[in-house]
């Protein structure tokens, strides 16, 4: 028997998209397969790794455990919606510049979890960042660079011009107003 098909109008990154999909498909599958938004990744599809994290109504959600039919009428945000025009969101810029995205596979999920967190806490401690990202696994970085990038993004977002990431953390572009220093 063919799978029953659901039809939904989803609000994704501020845009309304009408999709038809097998009713048992998760938000992860519908985002990647019906909407071709492949920026959202899958790591375990069991709710263990955080890789597929997206925001639903501003809260981090594991899209592998969320049925798409339950998301109708809710605001869904994915990594593709993070950019502001052709400019990177401060979180994206910080991740790129501080080497927090290595293979880049866990990055979209971590960016989304971090975005939701920084909207609640604009000046977090290292421990608070670590706890907020506790559900997201990364195998490349050892996490330090991710924590440093979130702290740096938080400073950029709150307009803190005094904050500087540690010199050892700079992999990417020079800090504003500074000449690049040789490593």
């Amino acid at each position, binding site marked *: 028997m063919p799978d029953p098909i659901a039809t939904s109008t989803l609000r994704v990154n501020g845009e309304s998209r009408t999709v038809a999909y097998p009713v048992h498909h998760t938000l992860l599958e519908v985002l990647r397969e019906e909407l071709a938004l492949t920026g959202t990744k899958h790591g375990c599809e069991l709710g263990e790794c955080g890789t597929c994290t997206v925001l639903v109504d501003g809260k981090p959600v594991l899209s592998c455990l969320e049925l798409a039919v339950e998301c109708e009428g809710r605001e869904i945000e994915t*990594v*593709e919606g993070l950019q502001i025009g052709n400019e990177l969101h401060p979180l994206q810029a910080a991740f790129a510049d501080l080497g927090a995205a290595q*293979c*880049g596979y866990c990055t979209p999920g971590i960016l989304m979890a971090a975005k939701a967190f920084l909207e609640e806490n604009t000046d977090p401690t290292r421990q608070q960042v670590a706890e907020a990202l506790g559900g997201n*696994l990364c195998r*490349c970085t050892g996490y330090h660079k991710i924590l440093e990038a979130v702290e740096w993004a938080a400073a950029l977002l709150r307009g803190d011009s005094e904050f500087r990431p540690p010199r050892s953390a700079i992999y990417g572009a020079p800090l504003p107003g500074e000449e690049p220093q040789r490593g």
Partner: protein
Amino acid sequence: MAEVKAPATDALVGTPRTTDELRLIGTPFRRVDGRAKVTGQTRFADDLSFPRMVHMKLVRSTVPHGKIIEIDTAKAAAMPGVLGFLTGLAMPIPFGILPVSQDEHALCVSKVRFVGDPVVAVAALTEDQAYEAALAVEIEYESLETISTVEEAIANPEPRIHDYGDEGNLHKKLAMEFGNVDAGFAEADEIFEDTLYFEGNTHLPMEQHSTVALTEETDRVTVYSSTQTPHYLHRSLAKVLELPASRIRVIACPNGGGFGGKSDPFNHEICAAKMALTLGRPVKITLSREEVFYCHRGRHPVLMHLRTGVMKDGRLTAQHLRTALDGGAYGSYGVASTYYTGALQTVTYDLPNYRFDSIRAFTNKPPCGPKRGHGTPQPRFGFEVHLDKIAHSLGIDPADLRLQQLAPADSVTANWLQIGSMGLGKCIEAVVEGSGWRERHGKLPFGRGLGLACGSYLSGAGLPIYWNHMPQSGVQLQLDRSGGVAVFCGETEIGQGSDSVIAAIVAEILGIDLKDIRLCVADPISPRSTSAATPRALR
């Protein structure tokens, strides 16, 4: 055939530039793939989609060791969307990463060797349909005795898991001696012995392996895959599919982490190519997380015994190391891993006399293989724990025991490894200083401790797997009329930053901007690279 001579080294390198003369190298810049990775634009293998693409699943063995008696696909074939099946009979030629261990099949031909060994491939219009059809395939096995540990492999030479190997269920046996070990033990004031066990582990890259294969003509196929070693996959595909290598193109997508777990050519990659050639449509397979554990190739569990002769002042006079590796069901890189459990034991501390014996056993478990540092972390753990116990017994500070007998710079070890610089002493001193070692070591309250362990690894691949005199890696540059430069290189971006390093070197030497470079990497139409043996590309 005429021997191909490598060009003289100085012809390749030119005059080295000093740090001051470098414009880009040594200065921080945003990774060239940084923006794509933070915007979701990086295209991993499972992000690819092609017109008319269909999906494939593998039916995997449910018994650890057995003969395949019957495969019945009739029920599955009648299910909606099902397009075709493959069994081992379609691809009887074996493959494997090492020339000495060509022991894998794209699908098991007559017997299965671990729970998860693939037996049937099924393609269907949708992934759900392929999944349902795979569940409906019926396979009858005649179970054979399960060999589950090294001890069982030694005790049971029969039934053999493979019909090759050094003896019974022992894949590899080796014994080596350097210097005069007996004289070294005779000279020693004391002899220490320890038996230690290193549990195996797996890579767990966040990205599950994925492959998409598509045909261009009846006998030309392109394979996109999450592989660290596109060139070796290319070789295996040519062998198993019986196609000229020039008609196969393998493109390694950026890997969502590898750590060695995507360094073997895999059965699902070959099945996807075969299924695409059979159906004439693009075929995708993405493994579930459970299946990634079946692919495994993780760090070998190693049982090890160390016997070391030591003078009263702590100086080492000789060591006899014995290791036993639980290899799992296939060869993989296991022969190399076996040597690796002994090869680097001499590199940190001066060890004048050294004996090394090892075995690698076949067992009915997912195959072990290369994982970060290959076979060396296991004996390293053993040696360092052993040294701490020696230091404790002799009443010498463990940091001092190590510092007083570092392998000297510009020396050759007992087993003929060349040591260039030796910064380990300064490293230990910095750790001792920074950790408050002298004040804290051995003085912390119960349940708290401060420890120190050292390790070393070799830099640069010694040899390619298939020995040849050609350069191990290279790049081709193509200058176009727009002023841009295309860089063709066989290196695979797995998160280690190889794309950035390659682009920076080219931009530095040509004196152009990074943004004027286009990379065409990890594709056998580019010059080959030994493989993304993880971050080796950067050294």
